[in-house]
């Protein structure tokens, strides 16, 4: 089901983070059927959750997107107007020049829709960050003539492209991401391959992100990667490097789907049952700082959407201090079970 509008535009109760957090702390958790995340990680000796070495600086350039995917944890869409300003980008650039993180990860929305996106990529690339990721939804490349040269642009700055493709078949992809998305995504992947992405003669990296199209957890990442590689090569002659299997976290539009389809309780049971303490030890929030479009700092992109700012004296990019931030305690709630299930889940795929 492709939604036409964001929760925010529909003025849905779940568009307010406090309502999502309240929902996630009531019901089966409040009644004691399932343990609160805090208690669960305490039992395996992982509380309080503290950062390890900072590796990834993830910047959200805005919630505007050309798609309205039914699972989107950002509640992104064309109706979202939150966009990172050039001034905030300049503050980010100051941080990028000095950060110890080896990976810069630009996300959104569709980050390419930020009017200063190209300027920012050019400037950020000068800092010599080892791994420079742009999370592209693929269809943006075909959405408008002004985006058609994005593959060349990405190549010029040696951008590591990470793209969502929920499945290697049209039906499931279009159901989650909207009608026509699959065909456009395929075309965009072919364009990326054509300029050298995921080709043996270049080091241009193209990774895909799989997330389940429904109320179930992803299976083994390597098995899925093999299925995707075989199907995309046979059907469309497409190459890519790695597949990241990401678990849908029960927030925002995916939470809305879980509640409306009466899958919420089963899904939470499945997440709690699949809890893996090894995944907690390397969960994404322990090596990442997430920066929102307006410069606030979060433990991860999900906490950003729930407006759970970092528990630190430093809360904004303008006051950024890596050493101080590294002493913080990571803020948690029941949505965190999504990152600790099975082999774990992060923006870089499985973690355990």
């Amino acid at each position: 089901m492709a939604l036409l509008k964001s929760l925010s535009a529909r003025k849905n109760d779940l568009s307010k983070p406090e309502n999502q957090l309240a929902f996630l702390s009531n019901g089966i958790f409040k009644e004691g059927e399932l343990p609160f995340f805090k208690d669960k990680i305490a039992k395996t000796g992982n509380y309080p959750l503290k950062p390890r070495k900072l590796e990834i600086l993830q910047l959200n350039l805005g919630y505007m997107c050309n798609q309205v995917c039914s699972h989107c944890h950002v509640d992104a869409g064309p109706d979202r107007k939150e966009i990172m300003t050039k001034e905030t980008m300049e503050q980010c650039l100051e941080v990028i020049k000095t950060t110890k993180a080896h990976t810069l990860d630009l996300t959104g929305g569709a980050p390419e829709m930020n009017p200063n996106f190209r300027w920012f990529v050019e400037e950020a690339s000068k800092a010599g960050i080892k791994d420079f990721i742009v999370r592209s939804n693929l269809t943006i490349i075909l959405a408008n003539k002004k985006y058609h040269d994005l593959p060349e642009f990405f190549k010029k700055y040696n951008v590591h492209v990470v793209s969502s493709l929920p499945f290697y078949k049209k039906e499931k992809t279009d159901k989650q991401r909207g009608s026509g998305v699959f065909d456009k995504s395929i075309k965009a992947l072919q364009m990326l391959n054509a300029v050298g992405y995921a080709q043996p003669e270049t080091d241009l990296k193209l990774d895909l992100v799989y997330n389940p199209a429904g109320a179930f957890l992803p299976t083994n990442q390597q098995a899925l990667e093999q299925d995707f590689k075989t199907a995309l090569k046979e059907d469309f002659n497409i190459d890519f490097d790695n597949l990241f299997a990401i678990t849908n976290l029960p927030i925002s539009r995916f939470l809305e789907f879980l509640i409306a389809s009466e899958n919420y309780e089963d899904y939470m049971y499945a997440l709690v049952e699949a809890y893996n303490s090894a995944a907690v030890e390397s969960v994404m929030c322990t090596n990442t700082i997430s920066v929102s479009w307006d410069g606030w700092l979060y433990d991860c992109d999900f906490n950003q959407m729930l407006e759970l700012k970092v528990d630190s004296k430093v809360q904004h990019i303008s006051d950024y201090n890596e050493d101080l931030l590294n002493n913080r305690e990571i803020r948690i709630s029941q949505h965190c079970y999504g990152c600790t299930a099975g082999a774990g889940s992060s923006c870089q795929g499985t973690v355990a």
Partner: protein
Amino acid sequence: MAKTYYNPDDLRKFGKITEWSEDLGNKFFDYYGKVFEEGALSAREKSLIALAVSHVIKCPYCIDAYTKDGLQRGITKEEMMEAVHAGAAIESGATLVHGVQMMNKYDKLSM
């Protein structure tokens, strides 16, 4: 008491059968887990077999479990339905092959 014999929530409680017979319960779950690991057959193939059998034995818990398992493994709905047909064909074949017994008996009894 529940007003139906089957309650979908009971599937989550399956593991509790060990509470009343720990040794046998654990042995069953160890065996069950081992059966569905990768082996001469892939875990994917076994999932489809399990789905077909679930239908043949008409176990609603198993149907829920292996539909979800198939989705997780990226098994398509076409593959799932074909597996159900494979099970149904064997089941109907098992009924129909008894038609030979009927024919034999009929012939034997008839002058």
